């Protein structure tokens, strides 16, 4: 395969790019020199692509320890007149919020664009948080692309805007845009090797003076006003007024696509006026007013919250009080969840009394659903987390007698699937690192807990909580499910991996060293695939009077298969003479490579899935599973 198309310098060439790849291309075309990210669906392909192409594009990229650090690294570069890009999923901005605030107050020098990939309907998230509110709270201009082409073009514009108004700029995508692919026309890659130098006058208390730099709320408002004036005539916004006045539609960012498709399908171009709005914040009020003046009703179509709808409603009260503003607040669109062609068609059909969208196959679909099974999420075949959970459960059973003798506080990652059957051994998970924090409050209430946290998550947000437990003497038990990679988001490295995002060798920062340095009373490392050893380590952990931590360390099974290629694993085999059909391997362990055979009432092993890890052989009470005799 040739090198990635995001780095080819062929202006005008049409190529297929994913939304997230187009963002990377935009950053490369616009001369970004420092890019940072923390992985999280649906943002991860931005960093994955950057880590592949950073060298050939001549820029620096890192997977930072968390989103706050990522933002700070970018801001540091910006203060030295370098262009920077930061990428994160929506909830990542909660982590970075503490630094976004001073950055927006103090302003930037080199353009700073941060990408927030929001996740309507929470396809891969614990919430469908709408980050435009956070942008508003921090006086940050927001751009919302409707296509990969626009995403690419907007990165370049956003960097220019950031430098003109000296504010960080948010590029807000939604999952459908980040993950869609379409043909994108490439622009020229401009090599702008700016001299890197700290802007003393702009940022130094010593040089510019503390009083001048510190209280900047007024300046920040003025900068936002300048952004708004620019947005009034921005070409990414477009107003089509030649339609009739039955209805006005405002389609915001990606959601504008649904509006256009529905208008085309219903052939009502002549009956509606519509505004494509790429700048939800600050709202270009003159542009919106021109739409409001010509209609009686306006429908605002946007992803997640009625953010623009609320602002348009406030505006209409002043400039066009007769206009009815409709959308998610008025109940004309659902209050929660992702929009889509069906929702949009239904709303238009109701508002304009159209017959066209009323056909359906509800009955057939219901019968299909009855006949078909679901495909539930499950840990992969050979996953070491499954072995850890199995051993942990045995240890809790032995020490506490009752499995409810502990509350298992999980965390964010593949291992969060510990709640799923047949393991069903996890009670809560909230946000990155929370397992260790909430366990301490429960300990104060006299409730025994296990904090169940992954290696990536431990580094992201677990460390301060662990130190807190030691210092305050909260006698908590922590299991680190250490599979050597940030697996769920696409196998990014962790600080233990010994390599950087750009593939350079790195110092390895080990979890056991951190735990010991923090003063944890008992630290053990165990291989979870040795079930007896793991169970013994967990039992010792449960009996420690103090803070105890066990690292269950074994490389992710999917990553291990990749590493061993082209070699293939040697699958295990069930001795059907020894198998009694007790089904313990299926009902208590449940590796996808274990298969039940109705023909002989025995378990079998799917040799295409089996990774040869040998854990099920330890689970089988009949010792009927073993390595295939050659």
């Amino acid at each position: 395969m040739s090198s990635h198309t995001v780095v080819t310098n062929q202006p005008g060439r049409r190529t297929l790019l994913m939304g997230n790849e187009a963002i990377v291309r935009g950053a490369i075309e616009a001369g970004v020199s420092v890019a940072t990210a923390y992985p999280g669906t649906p943002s991860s392909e931005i960093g994955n692509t950057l880590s592949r192409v950073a060298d050939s594009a001549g820029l620096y990229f890192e997977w930072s320890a968390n989103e706050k650090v990522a933002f700070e690294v970018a801001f540091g570069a910006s203060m030295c007149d370098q262009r920077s890009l930061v990428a994160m999923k929506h909830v990542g901005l909660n982590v970075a919020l503490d630094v976004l605030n001073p950055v927006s107050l103090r302003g930037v020098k080199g353009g700073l664009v941060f990408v927030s990939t929001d996740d309507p309907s929470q396809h891969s998230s614990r919430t469908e948080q709408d980050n435009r509110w956070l942008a508003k709270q921090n006086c940050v201009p927001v751009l919302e692309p409707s296509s990969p082409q626009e995403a690419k073009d907007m990165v370049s514009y956003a960097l220019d805007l950031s430098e003109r108004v000296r504010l960080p700029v948010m590029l807000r995508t939604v999952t459908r845009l980040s993950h869609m692919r379409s043909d994108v026309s490439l622009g020229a890659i401009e090599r702008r090797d700016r001299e890197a130098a700290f802007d003393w006058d702009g940022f130094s208390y010593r040089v510019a003076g503390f009083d001048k730099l510190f209280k900047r709320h007024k300046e920040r408002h003025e900068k936002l006003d300048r952004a708004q004036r620019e947005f009034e005539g921005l070409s990414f916004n477009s107003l089509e007024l030649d339609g009739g006045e039955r209805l006005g539609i405002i389609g915001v960012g990606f959601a504008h696509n649904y509006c256009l498709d529905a208008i085309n399908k219903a052939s009502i171009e002549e009956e509606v006026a519509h505004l494509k709005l790429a700048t939800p914040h600050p709202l270009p009020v003159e542009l919106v007013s021109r739409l409001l003046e010509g209609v009686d009703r306006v429908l605002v179509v946007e992803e997640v919250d009625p953010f623009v709808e609320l602002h348009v409603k406030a505006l209409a009260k002043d400039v066009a009080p007769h206009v009815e503003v409709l959308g998610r607040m008025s109940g004309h669109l659902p209050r929660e969840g992702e929009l889509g062609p069906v929702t949009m068609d239904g709303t238009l059909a109701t508002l304009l009394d159209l017959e066209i969208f009323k056909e359906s196959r509800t009955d057939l679909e219901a019968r299909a659903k009855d006949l078909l099974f679901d495909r539930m999420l499950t840990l992969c075949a050979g996953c070491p987390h499954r072995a850890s959970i199995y051993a942990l459960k045995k240890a809790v059973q032995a020490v506490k007698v009752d499995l409810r003798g502990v509350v298992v506080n999980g965390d964010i990652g593949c291992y969060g699937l510990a709640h799923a059957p047949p393991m069903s051994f996890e009670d809560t998970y909230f946000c990155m690192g929370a397992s260790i924090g909430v366990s301490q409050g429960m300990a104060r209430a006299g409730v025994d807990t296990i904090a169940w946290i992954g290696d990536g998550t431990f580094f992201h947000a677990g460390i301060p909580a662990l130190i807190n437990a030691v210092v305050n003497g909260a006698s908590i038990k922590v299991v680190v499910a250490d599979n050597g990679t940030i697996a769920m988001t696409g196998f990014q490295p962790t600080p233990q991996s010994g390599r950087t995002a750009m593939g350079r060798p790195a110092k390895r920062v080990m979890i056991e060293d951190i735990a010991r340095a923090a003063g944890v009373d008992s630290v053990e490392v165990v291989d979870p695939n040795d079930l007896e050893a793991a169970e013994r380590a967990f039992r010792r952990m449960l009996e420690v009077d103090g803070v105890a931590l066990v690292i269950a360390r074994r490389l992710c099974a999917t990553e291990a298969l990749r590493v061993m290629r082209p070699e293939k694993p040697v699958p295990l085999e069930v001795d059907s003479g020894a198998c009694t059909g007790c089904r313990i391997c299926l009902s208590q362990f449940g590796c996808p490579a274990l298969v039940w055979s109705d023909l002989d009432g025995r378990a079998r092993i799917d040799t295409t899935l089996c990774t040869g890890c040998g854990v099920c052989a330890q689970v089988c009470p009949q010792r009927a599973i073993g390595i295939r005799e050659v």
Partner: protein
Amino acid sequence: METFKIVIAGVGGQGTLLASRMLALSAIEAGHQVKIGETYGMAQRGGPVMSHIQIGGEAYSPQLRPREADILIGFELAEAVRRGVTYLRNGGLAVINSRKFPPVEVTSGMMHYPTEAELLALLGEVTDDVAVFDATALAEEAGDPITTNVVMLGALTASGSLPFTRETVLKVMRENLRSAYFDTNVRAFELGMKGFTDSGRR
């Protein structure tokens, strides 16, 4: 031209993404605009996956409306029917791999996989234009079951429904797939074309 709409249904790990990329690149090669919408959510290997592909015409959203796809490509029998009853237009063409990939709920004996007849009867309420064959067997014959996606691509090309030629698809494959696997892929492609013709397109 009217927008040409394709739905690909399968399970994670079957290479549906590669097939949709080859189709999209072929469309670009032939001078058309193209959009792919992916649905995979948290699906790792074995989870349900679906791609929507739209070629040419005036289309904005990457998601298809229900009942509008011209073609359904089913990499897996049950997934084909799950998506087909919703997305395939009345009388549209369904090209389906008859191979079953049962989920853990089925392999562990908790649930049953419906019969091929039961599944196809449901799809039959939408269309009579159905080609079913064991694409995975043909991929194995080509040299590697992983080339099932290329077999499906060949079958789709043989249907004559695509707005570009066999030569365009082969050119895109040559430029974008690893050269070491190219011969195997071409064998898989040819077998797919034959598989479609032999299926009799009931």
